[in-house]
């Protein structure tokens, strides 16, 4: 399989750079999680802030300064920030473990055509019909194809000159939708 783009197919050859993995997994996540409606988000945060205002008013009734609510919010923010930091460090370890698979694969050759996706590497051969691809999604530096709970990540760097990532995704979606 040689790399190239024709009217009938796109063929790529690349080694997967695991630096793309966090962005690819983020793209996979967004492809699975439907965006929340603006109205839902607006109502949720309106209720939260209204609750805090009521709390500030209530503690004022007991002779305490309502400004203490701000101190409380900032303290709670410290707690949330600490958890967010912990999550980041855990995810870094997670990416290192899950990225180990690509140490085995060597060069990946992938072909996209009207029938589906054909992938070959040092340890596997995989053929997906387009019906197996649940979503084609943009990620930072990559295109992510979600298939069930798994993903196929194509780094933008693997695309040949003259084929930009959005045109690539448009062609995949064209085949997928036909």
């Amino acid at each position, binding site marked *: 399989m040689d790399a190239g783009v024709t009217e009938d197919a796109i063929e790529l050859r690349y080694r997967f750079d695991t630096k793309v*993995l966090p962005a690819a*997994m983020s793209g996979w*996540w967004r492809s*699975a*999680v*439907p965006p*929340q409606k603006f109205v839902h988000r607006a109502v949720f945060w309106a209720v939260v802030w209204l609750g805090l205002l009521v709390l500030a008013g209530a503690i004022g009734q007991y002779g305490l*300064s309502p*400004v*203490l609510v*701000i*101190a*409380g*919010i*900032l*303290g*709670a*923010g*410290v*707690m*949330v920030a*600490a*958890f*967010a930091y*912990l999550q980041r460090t*855990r995810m870094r370890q997670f990416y290192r*473990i*899950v*990225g*180990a*698979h*690509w140490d*085995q*694969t060597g060069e990946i050759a992938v072909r996209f055509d009207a029938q589906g996706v054909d992938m070959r590497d*040092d*340890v*596997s*051969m*995989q*053929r*997906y*019909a387009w*019906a*197996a691809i*649940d979503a084609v999604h943009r990620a930072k530096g990559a295109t992510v194809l979600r*298939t*069930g*709970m*798994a*993903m196929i990540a194509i780094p933008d760097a693997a695309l040949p000159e003259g084929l930009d990532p959005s045109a690539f995704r448009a062609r995949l979606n064209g085949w997928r939708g036909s």
Partner: protein
Amino acid sequence: MSDSFRFEVDNTGEARAEIATMIATGHADTWQVRYARWRVMMAMVGAGMLALIVVMLLARLFTGGQPSLLLGVGAAMIGAGAWNMLARRSVGRLVGGLSEPSAVMDGPQVWTFDADGVRIVSDVVDSRFTWRAFDRVLEGQSALGLASGAVYFAMPLEDADVRADLLGRIEAWMQA
């Protein structure tokens, strides 16, 4: 080795979820799980104390008086609760998204195991992996999984004896 084992299975979604959970919780290394739990607990205590100090300092700054410990503890608990709620909402939305019907997980599949590797065939996917593609085989309560980093496959297999036998053979093939 000429041994070959063929299984026809259906609806692998639950098996995949079971194996994914095993991978995510690092079941293979119990010490890792214990370490992770201790780390989270220590982080919670540390973050709680930090939140307490911030609240006390800010309250003193704003009001000039001595605020009660209750306010700091309350703020720390609200922060922990808010994070928990955000995490649960996030996971809930992901589970909701993944519960949509998927041709990859919902349809019938044929799994064939032999000394060279495993082949998984369905109406929409045909995959062949050598044993070098996987670094471990996982045994769940009702499923068998093959995993390598983020890449994993799971097959529902209720019969514990068959599962144990197959597990032993796969381990031998992987080490060969």
